[in-house]
């Protein structure tokens, strides 16, 4: 059992570089392609993390406040 806690404090050294790369990943893709690429990215990262409890907690946090996510 891992004791790792979900880290919600800033943890990326160069946030602007990261964000630019994230958006650039989608350059030239259709909306449908982008959705799939995002899903693949989540799966790759989830596999890297591995810890299921941690992943479930992240899922719950992501799902919070979803009523705000409609435009």
């Amino acid at each position, binding site marked *: 059992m891992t004791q790792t806690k979900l*880290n*919600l*404090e*800033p*943890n*990326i050294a160069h*946030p*602007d570089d*990261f*964000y*630019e790369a*994230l*958006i650039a990943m*989608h350059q030239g*893709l259709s*909306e449908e392609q*982008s*959705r799939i690429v*995002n899903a693949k990215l989540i799966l790759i990262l989830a596999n890297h993390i591995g810890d299921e409890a941690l992943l479930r907690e992240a899922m719950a*946090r992501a799902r*919070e*406040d979803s009523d*705000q*996510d409609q*435009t």
Partner: protein
Amino acid sequence: MTPEMQARDNPTFDYRPSPDESAAEPAHHPIIIVGAGPVGMTLAIDLAQRGQPVVVLDDDNTVSVGSRAICYAKRVLEIWDRLGCADPMVDLGVIWKVGRVRFRDRLVYSFDLLPESGHKMPAFINLQQYHMEEQLLARIHQLETIDLRWRNKVVAVRRLADGAEVDVETPNGVHSLRCDWLIAADGAHSPTRKALGLDFRGQVFKDKFLIGDVIIKNADFPNERWFWFDPPFNRGQSALLHKQAGDLYRIDFQIGWEADAERESQPERVAARIRAMLGEDVDFKFEWISVYTFQCRRLDRFRHGSIFFVGDAAHQVSPFGARGANSGVQDADNLAWKLDLVIRGKAPESLLDSYDDERLYGADENLLNSTRSTDFITPKSAVSRAFRDAVLNLSERYAFARPLVNSGRLSVPCTLDASPLNTPDEDAFAGLMRPGAPAADAPVSAGGREDWFLHHIGGDFVAVLFGPRAGLAELIKVDGVPVRLVTVGEGGLEDRGGLLAKRYDARPGTVYLFRPDQHVAARWRAFDRDKLAAAVRHATARQEKTQ
């Protein structure tokens, strides 16, 4: 009822015919600056303080009309302080440090710039461009070697073998002038750039923004920067509220590429937007309304032989982050001392190429940051908007998302890491004051009086020695270039509070060499006259003498 328009009553300046206009041959001047905006005036002052006569040509007869730059960063205030005009700007300006970010109908988080204490200048001030320009003008009027000519419009530019020639249109007709060095400080639409047919390439942003500078009488908004993403009063777009001096507020609405600029600028339509934003009972007048679009672009090079481009004429950025005027003033700061040394024959002309190296680097840093801010504020694809909205949603609850929110990365001083003028460290140092960094300020005492460190460096090369002077002269010359010696400790500056030594990671014996623009050129743990001389030669683009 539509609020009234109360445009500012700008001062106007008389056109005075110059004797040059009736000269049989084109009159010759060492330096001509085209444009009396913030950057052209800053450069003129810096050159004049170095004893260089300067002619400044401006096609208008007043300071900035209406809404332009409003936000000036500490480094630029320090440059203006070296030039003797920052104090009145800070007195007039609004000092702010708190920003609030809103997403839809919620305040998602606030930030405090938490400016470090122990600096003479604040992190930022907000001040209308016309106030800032009037302070630069007041300083210009104290300097006799600046010949500022209003209503002198440059209508043609020709390169000469050893300089440039311009045709100048005045109310009396057209005359020509020649110069050794021509500096284009003539703005984003630079007629000089166009006359030379130079490419100005970059990215066009397909968006429009509506600006209102609004005099609000009955509001008591704090001195804060408020930024809205997708607010109820401007759905799908952004908005900004920022205080300026007096009762004036800058209000900025993103209105989209398809918006009809003329229709959106109608005072009754702008008034409706402002009431939706700030409340029905807000009592205001307009000082200025305009719609703007912007581009992020630059020239390939800022030096073209005898002709230099500075400020918006050289590079144009989005307004997010206050990087326009702030970078232009740093251009002027960088160029003035180099031009002065070259004109005096104390440095080779190749020193001027380092203006290109250093300020292209600065411009690219600004372009990168302002482009990123623009992409966050105005996402251009569905997936980009989804990530943006997700970041904003998470930022209300989770600290990790806040550094990803980008409503403008505010101008920070440019450290010239890759500069060919730097002497790389050979000793170990901690902290931020590496070669290329602009000098950090600190409180000191000089002759028993409280003072600031930055008042003691700049203008010339200055070597700061932490520890006793040990019999060294106050001034040494390296191939004719003067280097002032300043000591910290007994008989010199007192490091009251110890911040100076801390910021410079200084120990007894530590030596810093500062360039005339206050950037660090070199540093050592012990004084060595030969090393100092080599670093001065290196920072003035002189070849090392072979033994």
